[in-house]
């Protein structure tokens, strides 16, 4: 005899197929099962049996509803009846629809963001084949980093040249990319700042960008316009191809060679693209040595069909090893090949996962509550059910009625929820970090709205079936408490425990994130950003340092301490600050440092402590001995172990890029954390602006923007009215960006905790209130026997707190279980220590006291005589 059918499926069939008919039909299925097992094997027969069990379940529901011919005629009546019922109990209707709507609105917003930013494929062909390449520092890196994320570096021009010239087995084209730079466009005496990207013609092929007019740019002197910019500034005139644009203050002209629709998300929202990486990369930047240490170029490539990033890495690593024999700068370095779409979203993936999880948890909390409301309602209305059955209504009619009523309630909640999500999406977008790819495209589209509507309808149907099943289990009874025994205190109590546990979980996460934010806020950044304002411009002229120097002197003359800087703290994203390699000698290990260009007053204005030596002086001019100031982290990594900051002053270091003379260290300053409070310290080298400057300049001024805006405008306009300066803003506003993701986490979890706490309190309140109502007789007798108020209040409190404490304990256990996973979201969470359980205990305990206070006080106000008389009646 072959083994029997799967027990789970048998159990399900036993539930559905009742009576002689059902019994016989189960026999039919068993018989067919044995025959199939002999003919096709036990595994196939078991699979068949399971599908048949589900099938019978679905058909039985259809039969119960009798959703066949003629049944639509009854739907109208059911709808009218449902609306009458809802009108009769508006509080219940508002509670169910409102709670469901709240959860659904949150879930819809979270899904809309996750869909566009995270789940929807990037808008270029075969996005899985477009990869980003990194140089990977030898293990461990000079800064001691071992994880690949910290060891990733961009490509040097020399290596990019080698990669482009090589014939690849796994790659179909390699291109350098520069994004996010700004350039001034002189037109009719006005200068407009445009955002610019650089991309080689291969880059266009890699991203599948086909120009609408013309062709991709092939060199620095050629530009391609984005379709949006072309429409905005040229009125979509196709004749613009071939015209020239004056870009940069120096009046350099570039030829417009094409117009294209650029995919949003990558290379990002740019006005024009030049072909800077289209020519010979080696000759486009510095000497061969400098080229290989100056790792600042983003590189993308397209995998050949059927090739994986791992295969490409293997080939690229072998190629790197071969290049290291010719260029020792690559010795020990390897490569990293990652899918571009994944890499773009990587910094925000955890944040988005949290947002998504938050929406789902809130929806789950709402559904749990709604099920509780509806189940209680059905039990209370069990007498109505038996009256209908007595009048001849079938079970099918009752199920249909329950379904229609729940669907109406769900729709009443769902439609406003989708409208609320549509309205909420703009504030949520504003709240999220602006550099999330495709964030500006996030919207509640008809597709998203349809998903929200489907979820609402599904939840409505589930609630309808659950309500019907609960009422079916009830038995007719004269009094409400007896009917409520169907779910009993245990059933409803379990719902309360579940809600409190979920809320505890969310509160724990919120407390941990808040703890982390406070901790980060207290980290010493190494500079003092309070009271500093910033502005920026692009000066593309040889005399730019003279312009800046005069400007700074004029500002000092007006009593405004000011400094100028390039690549200064916070003025660029982490990825944008160029990093260079430097060796003490040919045999030593390379350290990777960041170079900042700064004017004389920079350290004083920024509050960066000078630890030894001096700041820059007027004598540190373009023709004098090259000098640098270095950070204490630079001293630690570059000089032999034990070198003090005093000893470092007066020594020379290896030549910097763009130079061949060893610069003299004139000062050592404190290390700054300008990539965020939790970012690792990077060695820093400061070069006087007088000795090296670039066209993009930031001004740092002492004073609040509103106090110095007028004198600054007077000085700037008086000196050069053509230069366009960005609006003055407080330096601290740049810091806000660091806390952007944390802020969103806090806000999301805060909202979720608040909503969860509210829902849990509602659940606890209705549970305790019902217990008090159902035990009126017992409480009345206790009062009649002289029980003091305090005892009665404690009696009620203890009942509620026991359930809440169980939920809190379960929630905390879940939190500590999930902690390793949550640590992936926010580093340092385990350090929150006792803060989590203490905060959760206080908040949940306080909320539970509030939720139980009403019913407890009501118990003390009961008149024993009235209560006992009611019972006799």
């Amino acid at each position, binding site marked *: 005899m072959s083994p*029997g059918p799967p027990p789970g499926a048998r159990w399900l069939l036993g539930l559905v197929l009742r009576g*002689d008919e059902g019994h*016989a039909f189960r026999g*039919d299925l068993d018989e067919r099962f044995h025959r199939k097992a002999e003919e096709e094997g036990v595994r196939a027969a078991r699979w068949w049996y399971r599908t048949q069990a589900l*099938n*019978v*379940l*679905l*058909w*039985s529901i259809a039969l119960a509803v009798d959703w066949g011919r003629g049944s639509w005629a009854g739907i109208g009546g059911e709808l009218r009846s449902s609306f009458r019922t809802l009108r009769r109990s508006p509080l219940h209707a508002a509670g169910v629809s409102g709670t469901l709507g709240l959860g659904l609105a949150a879930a819809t917003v979270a899904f809309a963001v996750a869909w566009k930013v995270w789940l929807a494929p990037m808008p270029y062909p075969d996005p899985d084949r477009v990869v980003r390449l990194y140089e990977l520092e030898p293990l461990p890196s000079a800064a001691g980093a071992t994880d690949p994320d910290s060891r990733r570096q961009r490509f040097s021009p020399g290596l990019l040249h080698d990669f482009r010239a090589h014939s690849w087995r796994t790659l179909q084209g390699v291109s350098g990319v520069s994004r996010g730079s700004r350039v001034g466009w002189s037109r009719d005496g006005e200068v407009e700042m445009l955002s610019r990207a650089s991309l080689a013609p291969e880059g266009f092929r890699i991203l599948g960008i086909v120009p609408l007019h013309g062709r991709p740019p092939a060199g620095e002197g050629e530009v391609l316009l984005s379709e949006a910019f072309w429409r905005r500034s040229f009125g979509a005139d196709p004749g613009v191809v071939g015209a020239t644009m004056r870009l940069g203050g120096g009046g350099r002209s570039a030829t417009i060679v094409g117009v294209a629709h650029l995919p949003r998300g990558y290379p990002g929202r740019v006005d024009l693209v030049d072909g800077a990486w289209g020519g010979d990369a080696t000759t486009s930047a510095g000497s061969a040595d400098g080229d290989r240490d100056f790792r600042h170029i983003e590189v993308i490539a397209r995998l050949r069909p059927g090739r994986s990033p791992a295969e490409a890495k293997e080939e690229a690593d072998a190629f790197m090893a071969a290049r290291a024999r010719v260029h020792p700068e690559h010795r020990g370095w390897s490569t990293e090949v990652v899918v571009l779409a994944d890499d773009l979203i990587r910094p925000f993936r955890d944040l988005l996962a949290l947002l998504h999880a938050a929406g789902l948890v809130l929806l789950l909390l709402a559904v749990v509550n709604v099920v509780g409301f509806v189940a209680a309602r059905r039990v209370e209305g069990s007498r109505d059910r038996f009256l209908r059955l007595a009048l001849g209504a079938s079970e099918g009619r009752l199920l249909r009625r329950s379904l229609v009523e729940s669907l109406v309630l769900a729709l009443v909640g769902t439609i406003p929820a989708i409208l609320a999500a549509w309205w909420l999406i703009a504030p949520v977008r504003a709240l999220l970090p602006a550099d999330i790819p495709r964030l500006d495209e996030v919207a509640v589209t008809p597709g998203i709205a349809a998903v929200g509507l489907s979820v609402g309808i599904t939840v409505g149907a589930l609630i309808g079936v659950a309500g019907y099943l609960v009422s079916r289990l009830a038995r007719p009874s004269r009094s409400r408490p007896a009917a409520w025994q169907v779910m009993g205190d245990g059933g409803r109590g379990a719902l309360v425990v579940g809600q409190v546990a979920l809320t505890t979980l969310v509160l724990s996460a919120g407390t941990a994130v808040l703890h982390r934010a406070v901790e980060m806020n207290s980290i010493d950044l190494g500079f003092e950003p309070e009271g500093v304002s910033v502005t920026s411009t692009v000066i593309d002229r040889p005399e730019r340092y003279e312009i800046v120097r005069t400007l700074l002197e004029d500002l000092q003359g007006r009593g405004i301490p000011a400094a100028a800087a390039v690549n200064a703290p916070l003025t660029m994203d982490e990825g944008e600050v160029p990093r260079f390699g430097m060796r003490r000698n040919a045999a030593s290990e390379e350290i990777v440092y960041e170079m900042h260009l700064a004017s004389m007053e920079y350290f004083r204005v920024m509050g960066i402590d000078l630890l030894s030596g001096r700041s820059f002086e007027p004598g540190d001019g373009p023709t004098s001995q090259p000098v640098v100031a270095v950070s204490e982290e630079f001293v630690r990594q570059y000089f032999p172990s034990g070198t003090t900051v005093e000893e470092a002053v007066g020594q020379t270091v290896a030549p910097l890029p763009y130079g061949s003379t060893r610069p003299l260290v004139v000062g050592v300053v404190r290390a700054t954390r300008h990539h965020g409070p939790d970012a690792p310290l990077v060695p820093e080298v400061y070069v006087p602006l007088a000795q090296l400057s670039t066209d993009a300049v930031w001004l740092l001024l002492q004073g609040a923007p509103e106090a110095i805006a007028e004198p600054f405008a007077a000085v700037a306009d008086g000196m050069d009215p053509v230069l366009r300066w960005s609006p003055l803003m407080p330096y601290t506003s740049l810091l806000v960006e660091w806390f952007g993701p944390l802020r969103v986490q806090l806000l999301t979890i805060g909202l979720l905790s608040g909503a969860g706490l509210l829902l849990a309190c509602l659940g606890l309140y209705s549970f305790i209130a019902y217990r008090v109502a159902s035990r009126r007789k017992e409480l009345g007798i206790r009062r009649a026997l002289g029980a003091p108020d305090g005892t009665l209040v404690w009696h009620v409190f203890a009942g509620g707190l026991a359930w809440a404490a169980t939920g809190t304990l379960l929630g905390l256990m879940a939190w500590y279980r999930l902690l390793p996973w949550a640590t992936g979201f926010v580093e340092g969470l385990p350090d929150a220590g006792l803060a989590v359980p203490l905060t959760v205990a206080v908040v949940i305990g306080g909320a539970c006291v509030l939720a139980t206070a009403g019913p407890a006080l009501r118990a003390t106000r009961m008149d024993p005589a009235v209560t006992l008389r009611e019972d006799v009646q």
Partner: protein
Amino acid sequence: MPERGAGEFERLVMLAILRLGEGAYGAAILEELERQTGRSTASGAVYVALKRLERKGLISSELGDPTPERGGRAKRLVRLEPPGLEELRQAHAEWSRMTEGVEPLLEEP
């Protein structure tokens, strides 16, 4: 008021009962349907169709003897009632009238 008439699938089930004669019961009907139509048939659909047909008075049923291979459960033997037979007659006549003379049109070119 009892429901009248049968749907297309219900007619197929009645035809299977007619073909099986005295020995018609759930599992046999299911197999007959699969054999004649060449398609797999959902058990739940047959179960529901039998219930509906019985409610409409087109078939009747009685319990047979239990067998070990059925887990000790009895067969529910079904047979066509005169209204069921009449329903099939009418459907057959309609089908014959509608299909008369269409054979040449249905032939493959």
